[in-house]
């Protein structure tokens, strides 16, 4: 094969039009509250939070190879610090984001420790951290144990201002977090991240800084989930430690990412969308809904571990939000779809060098 004639591409025509499509969707969402009922605005806010959760868990598990079942710790802390800051007199909306920054800062020392664990040990280790944090938050007198408390200072805003502000904050946070993740994955860190995802030992052997890269993802995921927790608090107002530090949040994240497609940027978003629809339709069925979610996660991990998007992507060579590199053979050899060779560490490294 004549290597000189290979073309390295960073996108496809589809991915370029998808980029424009994404911008259009975000603009439409920004003006959507004009046309939506109050209830619909609330639901959309929930959707944005789900997208954040899915994208952040995917960043950690799908790209960093770190499956955690304790991510609810950052969700709960995001809400808890927001309560604390607002109680100290900070504007409630500002405290949502300051809180997330604190969560990110707290996750740093945790990462020093936890990232030395592997696979299942990391997964349950994080769960222990979440359980311990939950118990410690319960000790705070302000929280009053499991009784909980509320973000009272938000009440100075009238209901519709509050609803719209939270909607836009959620939309902006989602967009910003997805953009950060996207640029991280597309940049030189992204090459390292995908190398780690594909084979950690091999990546380390060619000089990828495995732990440093993982730590970046860990802190980003903690920050993002902290934002999500704080936003959830803003929509729900009440803070009961049990609801926020519930492992169910991680179950939702796992469901969204597994069904959508673990390790693909678009898959997490698709998964969040599906989860949102399923919740809207079946959420009322209570326990059977949860059984269904668990069974779906079980089935996908066994039968379709690449998830919906991963499978479609593989079969049809789709790339909408392309973070990788494509090696295209010259016209004679290429099949119509352009036979994508999915992000190969070698391609990544020629780029890095």
């Amino acid at each position, binding site marked *: 094969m004549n290597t000189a004639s290979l073309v390295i591409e960073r996108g496809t025509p589809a991915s370029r039009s998808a980029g424009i499509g994404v911008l259009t969707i975000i603009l439409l969402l920004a003006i959507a509250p004009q046309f939506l009922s109050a209830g619909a605005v609330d639901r959309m806010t929930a959707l944005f939070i789900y997208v954040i959760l899915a994208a952040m868990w995917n960043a950690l598990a799908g790209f960093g190879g770190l499956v955690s079942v304790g991510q609810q710790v950052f969700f709960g802390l995001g809400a808890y610090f927001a309560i604390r800051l607002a109680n100290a007199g900070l504007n409630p909306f500002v405290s949502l984001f300051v809180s997330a920054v604190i969560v990110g800062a707290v996750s740093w020392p945790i990462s020093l420790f936890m990232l030395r664990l*592997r696979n299942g040990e990391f997964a*349950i280790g994080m769960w*222990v951290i979440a359980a*311990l944090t939950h118990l410690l938050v319960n000790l705070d007198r302000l929280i009053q144990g499991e009784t909980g408390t509320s973000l009272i200072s938000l009440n100075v805003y009238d209901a519709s201002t509050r609803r719209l502000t939270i909607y836009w904050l959620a939309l902006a946070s989602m967009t910003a977090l997805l953009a950060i993740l996207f640029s991280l994955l597309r940049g030189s860190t992204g090459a390292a991240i995908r190398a780690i995802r594909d084979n950690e030992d091999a990546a380390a052997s060619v000089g990828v800084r495995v732990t440093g890269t993982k730590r970046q993802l860990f802190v980003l995921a903690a920050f993002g989930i902290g934002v999500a927790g704080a936003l959830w608090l803003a929509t729900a107002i009440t803070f009961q430690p049990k609801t926020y530090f519930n492992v169910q949040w991680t*179950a939702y994240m796992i469901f969204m990412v597994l069904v959508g497609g673990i390790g693909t940027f678009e898959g997490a978003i698709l998964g969040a969308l599906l989860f949102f629809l399923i919740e809207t339709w079946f959420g009322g069925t209570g326990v059977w809904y949860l*059984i269904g979610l*668990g069974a779906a996660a*079980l089935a996908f991990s*066994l039968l379709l571990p690449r998830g919906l998007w991963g499978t479609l992507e593989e079969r049809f060579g789709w790339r909408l939000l392309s973070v990788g590199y494509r090696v295209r053979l010259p016209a004679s050899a290429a099949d119509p779809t352009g036979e994508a060779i999915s992000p190969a560490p070698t391609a990544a490294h020629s780029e890095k060098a």
Partner: protein
Amino acid sequence: MMNQIVQGVLLGGYYALIACGLSFMFSVMRIINLAHGSLAVLSAFALWLLASRFHISPFLGLLVVLPLMAAIGWALQHFLLERSARGGALLPILTTFGLAIVIDNLLFEQFGADTRSLAPFIGSLSYDSWEWPGSLYVGKLAVIIFITAVVLLGGLQLFLTRTGLGRSIRATSEDPDTAGIVGVDARRSMAIAAAIAMVTVGLAGAFLGMRATFDPYAGATQLLFAFEAAVIGGAGSLWGTLIGGIVLALAQTLGARIHPQGFLIGGHVAFLIVLFIRLYTSGLGLRGLLRLSTRKAS
């Protein structure tokens, strides 16, 4: 004080019992089964059902439930874990987590949110105690649990070192491919190991039900206890698990003395301290935090 230490040590027996299945499975299959706690609770509910519906004492009920748990373990390995382990080290975590959610919620659907206990079905055993010198009162049940744990751990150790089947399980845990070359059926050994692990889980579930209360969502806590005891006990031998369980229980006892809500906090903190020390004294990454050294046993 002395009394609390004795109680703590005895409670450690229960933790060792629930931890040994987890670390046994991990050392043979390299899988941490996140449904571990939920399966223990499942066993407790099965015994409760037998006792309350058919008036079968939980001890007799074990004759039904333990074979059932063995079958579940075999099926678990055959239909779920074997398949998902082929997809890498991360997939089994997700599979077993999904399974845990399904089990927890099915139990909730079937039995509701009420907390149950097996204590009413074991007569005076649940509150009887012996008086030991120094006016120490120790519960008969707690002693039975502790002795069961010791016997089980010792039996498992003997089984792994002295029997052909045990040796083939150990060979599989070292290296399934090489074991295959020398004629060990690795798939069979793993399925048997899973069945054995589930029998210990079933037993742990029974004692969970007898010594305390449980509800459909109690599995997560039991999983954390099992994991903590196994990690604290560390990569020694099965006896390490017993020490891990005792340390965990003593830390919880100490935590409860310091603060009324300190019981669980004490356990978690002890776990993290041990982890911290282990990480910074070993210097190496923790490849096998939970791994039982079967070599030492031989």
